[in-house]
């Protein structure tokens, strides 16, 4: 049945494609059908069936060929709308980029394309990647395929990579690209019961990805399991001369590192992550996770990351500041939407109206906060101070790693997925608290992965996060692999769409 094809992992599909069991065209058609039947999830916002089938056919030919095809060849995936894909709408889920079709392809999506992966379409997200619930998109909310037991309330898939998470969890594609600035891969992965990894800052090229916060953004894969994440990450990363912050380091074989053997590895549990008012379920899951790793032979120790509580405020100075500058180019002059002007409007009116109409409320707010913290008289008080705190946060991790800790285990999110619209009345800071466990990792530039580890009392998935040493994604993935095996999370959302 075509439905079953969409349930394949990347690893399984890879094997069956080579065995001649299935073709990329079959896989792709199965995904396209699933996508068409899943409009209620609003995960795919620009469907590209023709491109998909073209690439599938090419992949099939390549798989027949004599040369060994890359692992991602023929695998149907979704691309987050934040990535510029040549000739295909790339809007960062914003009205201000309405109609924008790039004349270039982002490095990461091009690498996937060159490896033979099949792009099914563009995926929903929070506008300009600013959000934790995919509720700020010009395309409308993305919806979590998971529901609370006996409850038809539509839930958030998390954000900003909400569409990516939803699509992978609902078996609309075998994997999806996401980006993570403060948790935007890991948090939605946790909310939807899938795996998502943000690599070390500089592992993946940022060229061609709409910039939100330059010193924090990283692309990463969102997949069914850890092996798939390893395979897809392999295809996505690597040095890019066009990105000056891209690391000129060889990419090790991530999949080869998945032995599951973590005997003797030291896992740290940071006491500062035990937050006041943390739901009991999350605490239990965390403790269970620690136990699982202990059973697998790791040494689990308490550690301290003293500046943890300042990570969120530091993030909400640095990210908006960089964003305010990165988003200055959206001005209606060279691309995207320009506001309709009144008689006598000059260029300043054009800017002001275009940006007021084109940017959603959350984006406007962050751009203005960022403008404020950089403005005359406040630079030292806010931006400079935040960068110093960032140094301290990074130092906390360096200290812990120097003491012999190999990875750090924390909850991925402070709750399970909440209802869409549930947080609309709260003040903005409440929404920001969703990222409390994940932002530290972006501030320190470390690799972090979210692995689904259990269900809450309402049947919603919960995830655990592992944080690794810089550049040691291989070890991190292996630790996650061990955790995944121990947790044995196999639940899937019941199909209601």
């Amino acid at each position, binding site marked *: 049945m075509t439905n079953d094809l969409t349930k394949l992992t990347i690893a399984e599909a890879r094997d069956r494609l080579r065995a001649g069991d299935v073709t990329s065209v079959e896989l792709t058609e199965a995904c396209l059908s699933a996508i068409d039947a899943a409009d209620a999830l609003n995960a795919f916002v620009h469907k590209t069936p023709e491109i998909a089938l073209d690439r599938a056919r090419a992949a099939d030919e390549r798989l027949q060929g004599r040369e060994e095809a890359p692992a991602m060849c023929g695998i149907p995936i979704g691309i987050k709308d934040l990535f510029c894909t040549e000739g295909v709408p790339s809007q960062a889920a914003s009205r201000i980029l309405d*109609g924008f*079709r790039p*004349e270039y392809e982002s490095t990461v999506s091009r690498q996937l394309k060159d490896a033979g992966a099949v792009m099914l379409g563009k995926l929903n997200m929070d506008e300009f990647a600013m959000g934790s619930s995919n509720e700020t998109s010009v395309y409308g909310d993305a919806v979590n395929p998971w529901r609370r037991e006996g409850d038809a309330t539509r839930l958030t898939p998390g954000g900003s990579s909400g569409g990516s998470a939803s699509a992978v969890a609902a078996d609309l594609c075998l994997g999806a690209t996401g980006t993570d600035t403060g948790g935007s891969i890991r948090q939605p992965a946790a909310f939807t019961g899938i795996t998502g990894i943000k690599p*070390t*800052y*500089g592992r993946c090229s940022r060229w061609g990805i709409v910039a939100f916060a330059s010193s924090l953004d990283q692309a990463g894969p969102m997949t069914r399991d850890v092996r798939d994440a390893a395979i897809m990450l392999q295809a996505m990363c690597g040095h890019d*001369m066009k990105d*000056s*912050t891209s*690391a000129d380091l060889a990419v090790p074989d991530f999949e080869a590192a998945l032995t599951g053997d973590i005997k003797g590895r030291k896992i740290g549990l940071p006491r500062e992550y035990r937050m006041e008012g943390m739901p009991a379920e999350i605490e239990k899951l965390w403790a269970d996770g620690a136990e699982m790793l202990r059973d697998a032979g790791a040494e689990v120790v308490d550690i301290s990351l003293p*500046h943890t*509580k*300042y990570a969120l*405020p*530091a993030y*909400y*100075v640095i990210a908006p500041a960089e964003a*305010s500058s990165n988003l*200055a180019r959206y001005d*209606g*002059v*060279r*691309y*995207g*939407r*320009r506001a309709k002007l009144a008689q006598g*409007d*000059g*260029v300043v*009116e*054009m*800017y*002001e*109206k275009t*940006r*007021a109409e084109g*940017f959603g409320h959350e984006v*406007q707010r962050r751009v*203005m*906060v960022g403008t*404020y*913290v950089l*403005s005359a008289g406040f630079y030292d*008080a*806010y931006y400079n*101070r*935040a*960068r*110093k*705190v*960032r*140094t*301290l946060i*990074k130092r906390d991790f360096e200290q812990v790693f120097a003491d012999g800790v190999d990875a750090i285990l924390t909850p991925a999110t402070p709750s399970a997925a909440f209802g869409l619209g549930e947080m609309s009345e709260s*003040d*903005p*800071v409440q929404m920001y608290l969703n990222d409390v466990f994940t932002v530290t990792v972006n501030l*320190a*530039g470390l690799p972090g992965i979210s692995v689904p580890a259990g269900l809450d009392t309402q049947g919603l998935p919960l995830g655990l996060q592992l944080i690794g040493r*810089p550049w040691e994604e291989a070890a991190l993935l292996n630790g996650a692999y061990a955790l995944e095996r121990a947790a044995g999370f196999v639940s899937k959302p019941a199909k209601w769409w």
Partner: protein
Amino acid sequence: MSIDKAQAAHVAKLARIKVEDDALPALAEEFNTILGFIEQLNEVDIEGVEPMVSVTPMRLKRREDVVTDGQMPDKVLSNAPDAREGFFAVPKVVE
């Protein structure tokens, strides 16, 4: 640091985002909530700490001085809301 309506208007102007006069008080309040949250940073002792300048310190890569790009005015202009005779057109700028 508390922001009033006038400051909120000034920030909106700097950011080139038109905010209606009646929306300014709400905006100012949102700013204040966020800034209130950020105030926590003042608790940290940053004496002698260098601000983080690069996340992963490495040598800045340089390009060779070779022309490898450009010569594609059509592609540069293809997404423009108003392109005329090879130029981007905007409402008249008054110096």
